[in-house]
């Protein structure tokens, strides 16, 4: 099999840097380059220190480089809307960590298989990554009519992008609960908590189900938690599903791996971990295809 698939990161902010540290350990992806638009960016300096090529010319530095097959975009919704067509034209697969939603929403343990060939994949939101798997698992065995999630994150882990576009979080997450989670109707709430030391991300998932079989629900949730733990080790069920009539309440906690960002910011960790999981599946597929061609 060929060595590894080359990739680049656009956006050397918190998310981009955490992803960089995660990709260092990848079996299938070789991070080639990190690009930004500010020459004196701390992130770019950190990328250079770690031996990666960098550029402050943004996406221009990546376009035309045929070796780079996968590009992670950790900028913002507006820049990604510009980047998406350029990357597509250049034959690169885009993994979008912004709320732009150019491509289909993907939550790895639920629907990655369906979209593995898509040229652009959107990672939804942190709340979506944490809660959609649970809703999908419950839906599978109990048929979810309504799903409502409450994500509580530490104020410190919410950057200016999240803050200025908080409606995007609630609307995108709610939609993902419906489209991928399978709920007939979804609702999302986000709360920022400024407590010091910062709190770990917490998520509460409420569902209204048609078939409240407690044992089946508990088993399905337990299995799904284990699946998410494969790529987010700090993901855990805090209170196992409480079934109360047709209402099911599940509580989760997401502790980050502490690769670059502190452990409390599990909300950022689950985004970068999911993006890495998607990137690796795609890279693996590309490697297998190349291997076949050689034969």
């Amino acid at each position, binding site marked *: 099999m060929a060595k590894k698939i080359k990739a680049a990161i656009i956006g050397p902010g918190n998310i981009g840097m955490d992803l960089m540290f995660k990709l260092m350990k990848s079996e299938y992806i070789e991070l080639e380059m990190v690009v930004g638009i500010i020459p004196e960016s701390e992130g770019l300096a950190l990328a250079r220190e770690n031996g990666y090529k960098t550029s402050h010319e943004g996406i221009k530095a990546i376009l035309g480089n045929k070796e780079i097959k996968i590009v992670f975009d950790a900028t913002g919704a507006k820049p990604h809307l510009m980047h998406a067509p350029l990357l597509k034209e250049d034959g690169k697969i885009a993994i979008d960590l912004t709320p732009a939603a150019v491509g289909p929403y993907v939550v790895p343990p639920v629907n990655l298989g369906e979209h593995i060939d898509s040229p652009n994949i959107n990672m939804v939101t942190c709340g979506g990554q944490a809660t959609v798997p649970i809703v999908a698992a419950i839906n599978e065995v109990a048929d979810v009519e309504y799903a*409502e999630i*409450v994500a*509580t994150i530490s*104020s410190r882990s919410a950057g*200016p992008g999240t*803050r*200025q*576009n*908080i*409606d995007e*979080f*609630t*609307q995108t997450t709610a939609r993902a609960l419906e489209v991928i989670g399978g709920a007939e109707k979804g*609702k999302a*709430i*986000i*709360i*920022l*908590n*400024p*407590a010091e030391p910062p*709190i770990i991300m*917490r998520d*509460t998932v*409420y569902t*209204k189900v048609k078939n409240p079989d407690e044992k089946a629900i508990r088993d399905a949730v337990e299995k799904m938690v284990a699946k998410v733990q494969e790529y987010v080790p700090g993901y855990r069920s*805090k*209170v196992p599903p*409480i079934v109360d009539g047709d*209402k099911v*309440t599940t*509580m989760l906690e997401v502790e980050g791996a502490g690769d670059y960002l502190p452990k409390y910011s599990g909300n950022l960790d689950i985004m970068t971990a999911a993006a890495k999981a998607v990137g690796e599946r795609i890279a693996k597929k590309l490697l297998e295809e190349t291997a076949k061609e050689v034969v």
Partner: protein
Amino acid sequence: MKKYIRIVDTTLRDGMHAVSHQFTPDDMAEIAEGLDRAGIDTIEIGHGDGLGGSSYQYGFAAASDEEYLKTVSRVLKNAKLDILLLPGIGTMKELELAAKYDAKVARIATHVTEADIGEQHIKLAKELGMEAIGFLMMVHMVPPEKVAEQAKLFESYGADRVYITDSAGAMTPKDVVARIKAVKEAVSIPVGYHAHNNLSLAMANTLVAVEAGADMVDATCKGLGAGAGNTQTEVLVAVLDKLGYSTGVDLYKIMDVADDIVAPKMKRPQVIDKNSLSIGYAGVYGSFLLHALRGAEKFNVDARDILVECGRRKTVGGQEDMIIDVAYELSQKRRAKLANC
């Protein structure tokens, strides 16, 4: 001339907490009509947690935001219709809906340290031609300078006014004065104050806030509201009158609304009991009260233990799910203890 104090009656919003958000649109219309007739300047309506609040997390309301807005806007003649919106719960879509039904005032509520999540909503309210108010909640959790810093943020977004809100009813008069003064010094827009009565200080705190320069204050008929409730509208009208302020409210008429229309619709007496007192003492968001009582019953633990633990964990407004978490943990701990015996 007497100094005018603008009263916002929030019986139909904060009071919704006390009736588990079960006022019907007709109940609201009947009360709102009475408040309007009595001369109340501004009437806030909606789910207790604001637009979009109807949920498992906070309780489902008896009707949708749209049904409430539609029904109440029809009966108002002079009073301004006001809504509350907590970014993260409600969105700009709901704000547009409120504007469609002629809401004139939008209060954008954030935790006291998170004003920046309300920037877009303040700006949209202004674009929609509404009076935009930045509503800082749980102000007891931070020192006055921090409150002032966040008030300035709201002012920079174009807010017409900023509110100092004691959501936990945890402040003493000294705390209130320090925060009102700090904010008055920091901003050039007017300042409002919202009290809760968990420590039996709602009226006293409202008065010291007015003395310190707040010219808009919140109240509810019969004191109906989260926790031990709010400053009581009809009493406030009487007290402000005795102190030489004008409110534009007819005392007898507002007394009649409170006793004849609101009181018969109450589900439980609005009093300070051991649980609401614990909220004020522990500094926990007032609307946790009924959720804590339900959690206590379900998991067979003391509601006060839940509330105090929520305070220790520095929960903020909106974190009602923490109550289940805490109640569950307390019940597990107790079970472990029993097992050890």
